């Protein structure tokens, strides 16, 4: 099932059998989301905390 990224408008693929608490990320902008609601062929996502790792430069 696909849902729209609230940051960039990209399509995020979420497995049909996903569970609350699973993590997904947007292929376009890299925003991480947590699945906070499932049901009725719909899924609700909440942006996870943004921990940007250092590139090492």
């Amino acid at each position, binding site marked *: 099932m696909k849902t729209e990224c609230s940051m*960039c*408008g*990209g399509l995020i693929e979420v497995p049909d059998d996903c569970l609350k608490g699973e993590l997904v990320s947007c292929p*376009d*902008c890299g*925003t991480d989301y947590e699945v906070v609601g499932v049901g009725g062929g719909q899924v609700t996502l909440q942006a996870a905390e*943004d921990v*940007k*790792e250092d*590139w090492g430069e």
Partner: protein
Amino acid sequence: MVSVGVVGASGYVGGEILRLLLQHGGVDVTLATSRTMKGEYVFKAHPNLKGFTELKFTDDDPVTAASKVDLLFLSVPHGSSVKVTPEIVEMGTRLIDMTGDFRLKDPSLYPIWYGFEHPAPDLLPRFVYGLPETHREEIRNARFVANPGCIASSTIYSLLPFARSGMINDVTVVDAKTGSSASGNAANRASVYSERYNSIRPYRAAGHRHTAEIEQELSQHAGRKVKVALSAHAVNMVRGIQTTSSVFTDREVAEVDVWKIMRQTYRGEPFVRFIRDRDGVYRLPDPKITVGSNFVDIGFEIDRHTGRVVVISTIDNLIKGAAGNSVHSMNLMLGFPETQGLSTIPLHPA
């Protein structure tokens, strides 16, 4: 099958057009000219083509060449197209001109940016600026296309969403980094490997010609005069262009705003990729992962400290910046599927 020819086919752009056409499937390459390599196999200049064609260079002049094909690519240095193009236009052969000679609409810009008075200003309106993403329908109906400059197209792709949305103002600073193939195959002191390896040569700190076409195209979309401060550097690699643009915005913009205008501008475009990630090795566009393909990769970062959006884009100068874009135009002009012959995945690592 449609027959196409390439004038200036011994050059780097000419060679790349040949490579794409030989894999295209819809056209027949029947003519490749070179003044210096007449009678040689084209793979003498382009050794990668060995095994794919037994075509030989002829030294047909451009006008004769135009008389022998259905569509002609003119891939010669700036200033040498305009000498022959009027006659070709008259003849009516479909023409895609890789030079800058017909890119500018305002003839008064030629003396300023190119250093010559344009000898055929009346022909300028008959050429379409060959950027498919902004001039798709015109190209479909065009007989004469002026293919964009390589740094120009990378810059325009970056700034177009900002121009369209009215976000751009003041002067936008553009820092361009190009590989060596952007300056063609000429052998001279500056192009010698020993001099260019490990170098960052600021070969045009100011006054780059592509400024003119960038401003022309962006201003059209912005509905006001857009100004660009472009500095171009040649870096240690053969293919690829990266442009880093500082777009100063009046009001503070959020990431979601930028995404919105990016999507609006490029929805459905087959050759535009957004590259932006929070971690990993490739978080923003890098020619390393674009080269070899017809993509323009675009990404951005917001700089609150100075009120700018840093927009970064990369292309393969010989493909999206030249041959690929022109084959895209050819596809539009001749009614082929837009992406025919252009969907190769780039290599990684390479």
